[in-house]
């Protein structure tokens, strides 16, 4: 027992060393284009971790995470735009002149401050998620109705942002790759390498944070909400409070992911709030494995990598593959890939192929919890 524990510990240390080595080495191994893609997908993994928290653990299927993702992206882009437009006409971003706006809208003002922006990236989406969530949860809207409401909210935000040329450049979005940060072009390879490292570190810290949230009794309450929410009320817990809180956390994480994605993709636009994109986010988590956290990260990174590779080779086929993947997970792998490996999946497969040692009895059948039946 002790030995197995030691082995496990060493395996973990080695794993972490490999991960850190990979992150440090990635910029020198990968071409700039691939590195940039990997950085973006890691940013998406942050969003996926939030979805795993609310869906995998708490059972809240949100189809509107794009809202919070885009808000984080817009917050970052607004700061970068302002930071680079001091020499321009009126000292405001260039696109305003296209629509005859010569004064900065008031809500842009605080984004002059880098500190405010760093806070706004997660606080604005988080607070909005808390408000939306509380409204829905307080009225005990659950299950598929919650999903539909989040999707409806997504459409509202999408249409609103699309139409506001004079405020945020409407459907064109805000570009970030030609803006300046620390006196350098955001789109330059050096900056992109920096963003990659920042993103990788944020993913690790997000993973640690979410893991801390779901371990212990707080996480048990989340699972209890997923299992039987009314029962939890009679035990003296207020599920609305817990659901609002985790939905706000997931919203904040989506905002952080959105900001890091924006600076690496070079633009934020209402396209971040399309319905398919928010559904894709859910698919990453479903394929990776709900309630596993690691599955959410791997799902986001690998599905997106596959998407870009497949799209380069056969541009039309990706949607079919993605649809097929989702059907496969729903029908054959409800626990997702990581969930399958963590559960009885590999043993069941060996059983079916007739390659495993037969167990003497059903795996769980024990006489009194201690003595096992001898085969």
């Amino acid at each position, binding site marked *: 027992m002790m030995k197995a524990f030691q082995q496990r510990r060493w395996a973990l240390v080695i794993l972490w060393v490999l991960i850190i080595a990979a992150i440090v080495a990635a910029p020198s191994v990968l071409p700039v284009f691939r590195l940039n893609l990997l950085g973006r997908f890691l940013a998406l993994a942050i969003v996926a971790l939030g979805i795993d928290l609310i869906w995998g653990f708490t059972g809240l299927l949100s189809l509107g995470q794009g809202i919070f993702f885009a808000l984080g992206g817009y917050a970052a882009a607004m700061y970068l735009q302002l930071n680079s437009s001091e020499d321009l006409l009126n000292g405001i971003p260039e696109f305003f002149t296209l629509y005859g706006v010569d004064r900065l809208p008031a809500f842009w003002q605080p984004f002059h401050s880098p500190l405010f922006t760093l806070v706004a990236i997660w606080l604005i989406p988080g607070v909005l998620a808390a408000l939306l969530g509380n409204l829905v949860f307080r009225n005990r809207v659950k299950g598929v109705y919650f999903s539909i409401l989040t999707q409806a909210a997504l459409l509202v935000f999408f249409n609103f942002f699309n139409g506001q040329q004079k405020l945020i450049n409407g459907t064109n979005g805000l570009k970030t790759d030609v803006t300046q940060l620390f006196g350098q072009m955001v789109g330059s390879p050096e900056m992109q390498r920096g963003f990659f490292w920042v993103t990788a570190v944020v993913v690790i810290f997000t993973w640690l944070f979410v893991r801390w949230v779901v371990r212990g009794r707080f996480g048990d309450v989340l699972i209890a909400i997923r299992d039987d929410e*009314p029962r939890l009320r009679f035990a003296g817990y207020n599920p609305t409070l817990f659901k609002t809180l985790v939905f706000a956390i997931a919203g904040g994480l989506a905002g952080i992911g959105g900001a890091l994605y924006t600076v690496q993709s070079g633009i934020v636009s209402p396209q971040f709030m399309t319905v398919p994109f928010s559904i894709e986010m859910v698919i990453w988590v479903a394929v990776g494995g709900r309630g596993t956290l690691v599955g959410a990260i791997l799902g986001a990174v690998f599905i997106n990598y596959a998407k870009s590779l497949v799209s380069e080779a056969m541009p039309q086929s990706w949607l079919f593959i993605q649809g097929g993947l989702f059907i496969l997970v729903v029908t054959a792998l409800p626990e997702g890939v990581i969930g399958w490996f963590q559960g009885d999946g590999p043993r069941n497969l060996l059983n079916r192929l007739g390659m495993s040692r037969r167990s003497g009895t059903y795996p769980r059948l024990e006489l009194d919890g201690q003595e096992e039946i001898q085969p």
Partner: protein
Amino acid sequence: MTSGLLELCGITVSFDGFLALRDLNLNLQPGELRAVIGPNGAGKTTFLDVITGKVAPSEGDVLFKGRSLLGRPEHRIARLGIGRKFQSPRVFEQLTVRENLALAVSRPKQPWTLLIGGLRSSQRDRVQHLMSIVNLQKRADWLAGALSHGQKQWLEIAMLVGQDPDLLLVDEPVAGLTDEETDLTADLLKSLAGDHTVLVIEHDMEFIRRLDSPVTVLHQGHVLCEGTMDQVQVDPRVIEVYLGTTEDDSK
């Protein structure tokens, strides 16, 4: 009328015109063990729904320790000291036995305290003690969903006790239990009375007899009669509602 721990005054519950409860009055004294019986559809479960805040009555008032419970959300009523066990066992199946009980004994039940700290050692001892009462120590790290029906029933009762409520509302605790388990459950509930007030709803007459407590008979949402099991069993009105109206006899 002396003021009891729990008083129901003229409760009427209407579901789209159907009166599930009509002008129901009930008074429970601290430390009392009370059984409530009644045929199907008598409103037994609705009556618990009213006390625990799941259903709002259209008329009447529920007083607990002299305070009205109406308009309070379920979790606040639970925190005031009312625990409820459901008809079919409802435990959190994806949590282990130990985690289920830990949630029951945790206090305060606020996100922040649950997030930053573990169980206090007194609470851990309490979880151990509860598991030993219901004989689930060896199953401590099993998922509750893997337990047998009887074990789930007991786990839920243990969770209820872990909440340390002043009033325990127990809905059909022995449904689907073996005779031996039924006897043990009866003893357990009797031992809880005194420190707690216990209200048991049950169909099983043998079980009620074993509880040896005052019995309230509900019929069509109304209290038909109250008394000891022996008194109740010979009451002609009770015989009538349980066995049906005897039209043949009147001919």
